[in-house]
């Protein structure tokens, strides 16, 4: 297990490095950030000054080297010291990138965890029920409802739900309150985003868990268990469910990875300051340090979840454990 984790971590670091390098150099092909922050009526002197302040006057390779070294050792800027892991200062807000990321993470993480709890419980419960009752009215209802819901969009569903529940005063308007300053307020503020975001995921998990369960129930080893006299429920929960875990965990890992990296549409729809919105803002303002920061951070989270999923396989499937 340990060599496996070591190898995977090493691989993830290589991917991160390549991603960073690529983004860094592509960025400079996109335009001049000094021009952006200076505005329309900008003199050449002003631009030169901004270049100097942002360190853009140095050769690109030097800038890149400084950036990489800074991540591990920290850097000194004219505005002050930036401790490791240092991703520099935002061009747009003049804030430290790392501090901004840490500031936005709790919102995104809360959104992801709460949403995942909702879509996992509801999605798997309905999926399993539909598989258990396959071919019946219950199954058909769940399947068709999830079909409709999975094609819904957050930016359409969001305003509708807000319109119904917020303006009638039934639920609180979405906002982020730190968990430590009150779990009730935290939950109340995120309830609508959780439910709306979870709707689409729930529908997907219903469909996926139903179909993998139905597939598993046709497996020969499931039939063998039945032939041994094991009860229908035992066969369903122990044999078929066990085999369904791998595909479900795979998709879940991918979903969690991208959710932790920022739910752009959800955050935008509900005006929540998470990593997803940060990504959009930094790209639209050509904020290089912030773009790199968000990218590395989100990619690292996705890679981390991938490694977790692969490690989970070993617990689920003994055939993976030994090879």
């Amino acid at each position, binding site marked *: 297990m340990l060599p496996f984790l070591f190898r995977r971590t090493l691989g993830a670091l290589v991917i991160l490095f390549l991603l960073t390098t690529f983004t860094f150099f592509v960025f400079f092909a996109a335009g001049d950030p000094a021009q952006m922050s200076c505005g329309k009526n900008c003199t050449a002197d002003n631009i030169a000054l901004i270049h100097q302040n942002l360190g853009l006057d140095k050769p690109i390779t030097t800038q890149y080297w400084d950036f990489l070294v800074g991540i591990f050792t920290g850097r000194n800027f004219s505005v002050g010291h930036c401790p490791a892991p240092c991703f520099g200062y935002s061009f747009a807000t003049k804030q430290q990138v790392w501090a901004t990321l840490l500031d936005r993470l709790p919102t995104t993480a809360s959104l992801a965890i709460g949403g995942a709890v909702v879509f996992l419980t509801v999605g798997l419960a309905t999926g399993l029920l539909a598989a258990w009752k396959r071919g019946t009215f219950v199954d058909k209802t769940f399947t068709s409802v999830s079909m409709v819901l999975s094609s819904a969009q957050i930016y359409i569903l969001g305003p509708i739900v807000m319109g119904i529940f917020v303006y009638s005063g039934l639920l609180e308007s979405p906002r982020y309150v730190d968990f430590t300053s009150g779990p009730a307020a935290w939950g109340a503020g995120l309830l609508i985003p959780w439910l709306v975001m979870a709707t689409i995921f729930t529908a997907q998990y219903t469909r996926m868990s139903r179909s993998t369960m139905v597939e598993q129930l046709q*497996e020969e*080893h499931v*039939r*063998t268990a*039945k032939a*041994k*006299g*094991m009860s229908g429920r035992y066969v369903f929960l122990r*044999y078929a469910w066990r085999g369904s875990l791998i595909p479900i965990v795979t998709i879940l890992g991918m979903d969690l990875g991208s959710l932790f990296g920022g739910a752009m549409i959800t955050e935008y729809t509900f005006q929540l300051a998470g990593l997803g919105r940060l990504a959009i803002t930094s790209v639209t303002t050509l904020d290089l340090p912030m773009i790199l920061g968000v990218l590395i951070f989100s990619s690292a989270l996705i890679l981390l979840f991938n490694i977790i999923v692969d490690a989970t396989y070993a617990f689920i499937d003994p055939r993976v454990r*030994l090879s």
Partner: protein
Amino acid sequence: MTTLTKTEDAAAPTGADPFLSVRDLYVRFSTEDGIVKAVDGLSFDLERGKTLGIVGESGSGKSVTNLAVLGLHNPRATEIKGEILLEGQELTGAREKTLEKLRGNKMAMIFQDALTALSPYYTVGRQIAEPFMKHTGASKREGRQRAIEMLAKVGIPQPNLRVDDYPHQFSGGMRQRAMIAMALVCNPALLIADEPTTALDVTVQAQILDLLKDLQQEFGSAIILITHDLGVVANTADDLLVMYAGRAVERGTVKEILTEPRHPYTWGLLSSMPRLTSDVTELLHPIPGTPPSLLSPPTGCPFHPRCTFKAEVGGTRCADERPPLAPGRASACHLTAEQKQTFFIEQIKPRLG
């Protein structure tokens, strides 16, 4: 042979009830393409301690019949008619709870491919112990003990260690042994072995068949041995049922059928079997054509489109009239007894060498 005294159609019991009695069994699946008549009016009996071989091509209804005995067909897509009596107890239409108590306990099944038929997620020991614990109420420890005992019985070395292995850590032959151990863990009175040796190489095949015979002597189980390999049946079974297109076309003792087969389909099966003693230049004689679609089986005798002797019957009788299977030693064919004998001796026997 006392086991073969019943007619194909008549349900009238004669003398003592047989251990397992299948009467006029129909199994039909509804699929998107239509109704598949997988088993079409099948009857047979089996006594305790005896082995019945069922042979036939793929899709002849061998496995379907036996899955019906265990009640393993999906009731929503399957229509089962007829009687399956296990010691007088009706199994068709029996409640799921009733069947659960019988499966793995009084009747057990060995499946063809142990790699796919055993769950990859649980240890061999656990999978063997499960039915034992369920049916006898044994504890986990007793179950494990029993699993070790069974593994030893089927010839797995170091059973106390191998009990904690997963199926993929076993070799093919060992997996099949483990599967047999699993089927026999509750000393079932009826053991259905569905092509138990097809996935194994020949040397292992012989070991597994010997093992089945030994265990049958020890436990006195009745065995249904499903196979498409007449060689397997020759050494193992007492009686033989040849199936084609969901029907029994010939029945008799193994010796009778192998030495004096009376149905053109059985002749075809025997002629298409390669022999070690025959010369390399000697051609095999496969049965022409392919097995019929069971969505729309041929009218009359289902074998008539492939039968090279249908002209001898004359007219369109083979295509119009379903030949009955008479009681006892019999074959469902319109040829007269004399014709069958003449054709076999003159045309078929020389091929068999």
